């Protein structure tokens, strides 16, 4: 996409708004909507990956140290991962302005 969405005119749209650029959904930073975000105490993490399995967004992956962590660009702050974590690594905190 050469132009940003805000710059595109109606003439720039493909017929029927077809998207010709595969994988472009990742350009939508849907994590901007959340009101809470997860924080981590990795000292307790046993790297079991249950949080990643239960994440409805599929946005949890392993970081460089191998700990499981949400990509905050796509995390909606639903709070499922702290509920599922067997060692209580994750705490939800209010998203600040």
């Amino acid at each position, binding site marked *: 996409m050469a132009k940003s969405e805000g710059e595109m*005119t109606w003439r720039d749209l493909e017929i*029927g708004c*077809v998207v010709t650029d595969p994988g472009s959904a990742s350009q939508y930073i849907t994590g901007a909507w959340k009101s809470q975000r997860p924080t981590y105490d990795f000292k307790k993490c046993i790297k079991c990956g249950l949080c990643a399995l239960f994440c409805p967004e599929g946005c949890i992956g392993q970081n460089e140290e191998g700990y499981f962590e949400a990509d905050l660009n796509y995390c909606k702050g639903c709070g499922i991962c702290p509920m599922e974590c067997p060692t209580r690594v994750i705490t939800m905190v209010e998203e600040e302005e």
Partner: protein
Amino acid sequence: MPKREGWEVSVAIGEVVKLADTDIVAAYPITPQTHIVEHLAELVADGELDAEFIPVESEHSAMSACLGSAAIGARTFTATAGQGLELMHEVLYVASSMRFPIVMVVANRALSAPLSVWGDHSDAMAVRDTGWIQIFVENGQEAIDNVVCAFRIAEDKRVLLPVMVHVDGFHLSHMIEPLVLPNKDEVNSFLPPNKFPLPLNPDKPVTMGDFAPPVLYTEAKWAQEVNLRASKEVILECWNEFGSVFKRYYSPVETYRVDDARVLFLTMGSFSETATVAIDELRSAGKSVGLIKLRLWRPFPFKEFRKAVKDADVLIVLDRALSFGGPGGPVCSEIKAALYNESKKPKVVSFVGGLGGRDITKSGFEEIYQRGIEIAEKGSDQEYEMFGVRE
């Protein structure tokens, strides 16, 4: 003269859909559309039409299957009526906004309740704003001619929009008329192959029907509107070429004995036939009256319509549908809107009638004429008059 043969209009519609080499028909039977899709199912079963007939479980599914069919670039046809059209409703918007060239015949039928299988335009008016090109026809010949044209218009790369051909239920769908059917070669040379520009194709993947955030939705709708409006030029071009090949000519606003007419009727669909006979009688009795037949309903032919009515004193609009608690006839309401800012315009009188299959005969039109003139002269405290209702 080409040979005229007796055909039931529904069956003849099935025949031209066959001649058009339609690839996929997805339909659910509903009166009074049934004979169209029954005939197509037979043609496919007998091997006369090499197409996939998808017998779906509802009209919502019929139109949804048509989306998939059009998305792979297949020539796609369906037909429905009344409640069936309403059950398709949400999918109709998807078809037009995804720019799928689907052709659909609607055998116009009244809406429940009370249950009525008979004809009026309630179903058509409820889908007015779905973004489809919409054509009304007044007899069987016009029906089959415009089904052929509909494929060419819909699939034209400058258009790529679905087209509805409105054929009055029973009054047209079940009529046996002397018709000139085109032959296969004529249809083949008039109708180029369907070349949908961005079809579903594993070698070139695309995403269809994605979402648009607020920053893009307005642009998407405007693109659709610009495109639907611009389709009028292609429709005119198609009708002109059809005329030069088949010697039958169509235009967005057609007229009958309008020269110097002080009073004009405006009708859509099969009632135009009866109206022409009534006009003849009124003319013989010395009345200055003519008829405007609105063929192209969407995109609305503002320019042609204003030109056709500007010199008349009175315009009597007959609607076969009712906008409850509103202006009465939906067509008349648009007619009034189209004329409001014009400096030279006729007085517009609105009648609603012919609901749920009730006939308006020649003498009915003559009554409407008398009453219409009365209202135009003396005014009325009603937005519209319900013709023929027993008080």
